[in-house]
């Protein structure tokens, strides 16, 4: 229809026809079909009975949640006709649609048809059940994990940064630290685990040490290579303008090395997640990693999926946070590199 309407010349001030502008129409159709998909998931969950031998307590709750989401999406799609802010939301439409399809399929092969073996593959409403019944312990786990991770990561990043600057700048520091780094750095931090748990007074402090170690190595190496790679012309300029050594380090070397430092910080963050989970499973007896293991031990697979999901949110949230910090600090790189 749009091709016909587009060819009809019409005065632009007739704003009533704005509704038929092709992009608006397309995003409205997209939004409404996403809402339809979610209401289908809701209807399908609610009206197709679960397998008789199962007793999922939250099938209705899950259906209602999907229905509420469908309603919200429909409202947003209609609002998009008037408000540009909601139109942006339509970029997510294909993903939201795919997600609805995935949930429907999951629901079908578990609760409805029972095709997947049971304790291992619970239906979505089982995870909703965990979230509602066990949220206290999950929240505790998130808090414990976040605290351990933040302490270890910040400590490791700070020590790694200072060490990297020291080796990059001072020949003597390089002479002593470089071989140590070469020798010990490539060792995975988890290899220290048995030693750390007996040397440190508590498993918490041992885990902080391990996380800091895992973070510190890449941060050190990349800070160092960043500092070593600063163009000598930058120093020449500052030196002829009367810069002191301190100024050269703080105002020339470090800012010039910052893009490298951030690569190190990203790598360190990835490493720290791995060590966090292992440390929690083997020593700390708290946090999401420990919860995961506990859930597995009791064959509470729904709890395990819930914890995995939360962990994914935690990790990707932290990565996003680091990205926005980088975007803020290195905004001068925009237009200089592929952003």
């Amino acid at each position, binding site marked *: 229809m749009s091709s016909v309407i587009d060819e009809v010349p019409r005065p632009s001030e007739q704003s009533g026809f704005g509704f038929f502008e092709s992009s608006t129409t397309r995003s409205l159709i997209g939004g409404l079909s996403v809402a339809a998909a979610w209401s289908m998931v809701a209807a399908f969950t609610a009206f197709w009975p679960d397998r008789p031998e199962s007793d999922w307590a939250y099938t209705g709750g899950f259906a209602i949640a999907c229905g509420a989401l469908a309603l919200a999406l429909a409202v947003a799609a209609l609002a998009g006709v008037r408000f540009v802010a909601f139109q942006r939301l339509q970029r997510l439409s294909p993903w939201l649609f795919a997600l609805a399809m995935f949930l429907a399929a999951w629901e079908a092969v578990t609760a409805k048809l029972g095709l997947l073996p049971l304790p291992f593959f619970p239906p979505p409403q089982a995870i909703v059940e965990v979230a509602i019944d066990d949220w206290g312990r999950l929240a505790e786990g998130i808090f414990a994990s976040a605290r351990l991770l933040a302490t270890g990561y910040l400590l490791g990043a700070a020590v790694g940064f200072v060490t990297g600057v020291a080796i990059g700048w001072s020949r003597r520091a390089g002479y002593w630290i470089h071989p140590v780094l070469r020798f010990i750095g490539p060792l995975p931090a988890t290899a220290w685990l048995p030693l750390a748990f007996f040397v440190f007074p508590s498993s918490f402090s041992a885990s902080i040490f391990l996380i800091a170690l895992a973070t510190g190595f890449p941060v050190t190496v990349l800070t160092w290579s960043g500092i070593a790679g600063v163009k000598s012309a930058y120093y*020449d300029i*500052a030196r*002829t303008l009367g810069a002191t050594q301190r*100024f050269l380090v703080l105002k*020339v070397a470090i800012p*010039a090395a910052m893009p490298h430092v951030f690569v190190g910080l990203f790598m360190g963050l990835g490493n720290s997640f791995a060590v966090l989970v292992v440390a929690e499973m083997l020593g700390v007896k708290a946090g999401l990693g420990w919860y995961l293991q506990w859930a597995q031990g009791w064959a509470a697979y729904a709890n395990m999926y819930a914890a995995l999901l939360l962990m994914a949110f935690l990790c990707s949230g932290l990565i996003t946070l680091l990205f926005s910090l980088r975007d803020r600090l290195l905004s001068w790189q925009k237009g200089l590199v592929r952003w």
Partner: protein
Amino acid sequence: MVAAIASDHAVRGSTLTLREVSHRFDLEGQPLPVLDRISLQVGRGEFVALLGPSGCGKSTLLRLVAGLDTPTAGSLLTEGREIEAPDPSRVVVFQDPTLYPWRTVWSNVALGLEARGLLRTHRGRIEDALRLVGLTGFANAYPHQLSGGMAQRAALARALVNDPKLLILDEPLGQLDSLTRIAMQAELVSLWQRSSFTALLVTHDVEEALLLAGRVIVLSDRPARIKAEVVNSQPYPRHRGDPHFVELRREVFEQLGLDEAW
């Protein structure tokens, strides 16, 4: 606006003496002689231009004067004292602008004041320097948002805010279009006249050398030796069409070995 930069202190230019300065680089184990016993005496407030073929060693000589490198043989003195390290009284405008990409134009220009802890008291000079080079509207731009010529002008401003006693210019106007170039040449001369610093200018442009400098030193091919010295005592502003100017230009070209073209 020139006055604002110049009148802060009555700067007196410093003297510069080069005694038999020779310099050699190591190029893959082979010695590469670049400067060959250069002797030069530059008086207080003089404007001297260095002219020579590409790769002959002009930038090398300027690095020695700045104190960034030490010569293989011979000595350089300013105000009778040996040049051993860089000093903010001798400011260099390098051939390559080399602005810090993480700083805006304004804070690039502020670099020298910041390094010496003068930013709070002399902040106004930055604005003046930017106005002088015509970059007022770009104070908050980042270097990658500038054209090559604008970057070069920013580098010039970065040097000028420091109120140098010896201004070392390595083809500072090389990337400018001819109109901007003529305007910047005039600004340089009037700035130099007002603040009476000593200026050492490297250029490829014979006319530019003769328009700006009181003395033009012609260097030979590598290793650079002083081949000739042409004095231009004409008053400023000088005019390209002036018969005496044309005569001097012919003389310099002759020294460069291009006489048959004229």
